[in-house]
């Protein structure tokens, strides 16, 4: 039961993390009316995944292995694009906040409407089909034992609960800190999703080099351990990583993180440690 619990937890964590941060962002910037778009995206992804999974499990036709990997791989890489957009969208807002004019945030959010539905749908739907296939397999197994289904469902429930905790923690942070931490975190989440997508495409034979491993630390970080599960579930850390995955990861993290830091960094770097600017992380509070 514990192994099934960990599978559910791993499959649900990243989606729940991204959605948690997204919701916290909308709440903090007083854009609650856009929350509906997020929930539409989430609902769409969940229902399409469950329906497609049921059709493939119980229907007359299954999905070829290449097709499933290609879907997972392509959705992952598209999701990276959208999460990157989310990172800089939030970073832009943070920059405008340096002037402590909260009203000006509107300009950054206007573009966000339709993209929000897609972003939320991709965050959840990226691995939705695989998760649904796992859950339906567990549902089929209830003839023998209901433990796998209970385990898997509990894992997903804990993933959602962790997402809620992240949301709660994030809304309490001051805005500057919130943008820096969640943005930085999302850069690594997106890089992991990219590496994961590359691996899916390598498995499907669409990209080469599946057997060229850069490192294998699976004896130190077993993928079925709780910490291996958490690392995989949040940052898509894979104990056995191919060279192509590693190169893609570095090629994403280095420029994106640099650009991100440049965007959120306080503009007047010339006077970083004077007494008057010792609290640059709370510009919103500086407003009279």
């Amino acid at each position, binding site marked *: 039961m514990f192994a099934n619990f960990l599978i559910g937890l791993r499959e649900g964590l990243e989606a729940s993390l991204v959605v948690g941060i997204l919701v916290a962002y909308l709440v903090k910037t007083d854009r609650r009316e856009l929350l509906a778009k997020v929930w539409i995206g989430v609902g769409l992804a969940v229902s399409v995944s469950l329906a497609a999974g049921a059709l493939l499990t119980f229907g007359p036709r299954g*999905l070829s292995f290449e097709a499933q990997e290609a879907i997972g791989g392509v959705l992952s890489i598209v999701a990276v694009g959208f999460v990157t957009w989310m990172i800089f969208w939030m970073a832009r807002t943070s920059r405008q906040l340096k002037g402590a004019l909260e009203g000006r945030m509107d300009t950054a959010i206007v573009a966000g409407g339709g993209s929000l539905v897609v972003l939320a749908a991709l965050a959840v739907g990226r691995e939705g089909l695989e998760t649904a296939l796992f859950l339906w397999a567990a549902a089929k197994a209830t003839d023998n034992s209901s433990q796998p289904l209970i385990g898997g469902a509990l894992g997903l429930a804990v993933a959602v609960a962790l997402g809620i905790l992240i949301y709660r923690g994030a809304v309490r942070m001051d805005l500057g800190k919130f943008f820096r931490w969640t943005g930085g975190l999302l850069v690594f989440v997106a890089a992991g999703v990219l590496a994961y997508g590359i691996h899916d495409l390598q498995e499907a034979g669409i990209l080469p080099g599946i057997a060229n491993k850069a490192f294998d630390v699976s004896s130190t970080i077993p993928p079925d351990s709780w910490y291996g599960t958490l690392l995989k579930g949040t940052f898509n850390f894979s104990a056995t990583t191919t060279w192509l995955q590693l190169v893609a990861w570095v090629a994403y993290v280095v420029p994106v993180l640099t650009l991100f830091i440049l965007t959120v960094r306080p503009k007047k770097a010339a006077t970083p440690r004077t007494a008057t600017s010792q609290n640059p992380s709370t510009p919103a509070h500086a407003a009279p």
Partner: protein
Amino acid sequence: MRHLLPSLALAGLLFVVAACTENDTKSEAGAVKVSSTDDACELSSAEAPSGNVLFEVTNDGSQATEFYVLAEDGKRIVGEVENIGPGLSRNLVIQAEPGNFFTACKPGMVGNGIRSSFTVTDAGK
């Protein structure tokens, strides 16, 4: 942006329909049953006729497992099914040409897996 979501959905749907394989091998006696435990990987048959080959992989162990069909070089993945938790059965359908393959169970999701040879005989399809 307005057209993005429907176009994405449509493209995805077309792709899924195009990529479907017949599930009806299920009813045939041809399914290869695989039992993966923590230290063994037992197949009901070490060969199958070419065409659609269905593997019904059951995890009879206590660790999560994966099942692979590999090409003759032992590297290229012909088919794979992941996330087979203890107590679960999941299916893998591959379109197999005649030839020599390897099957592998990966209890604990690590290493090269417990491998054995698998032959696909020429059935004219």
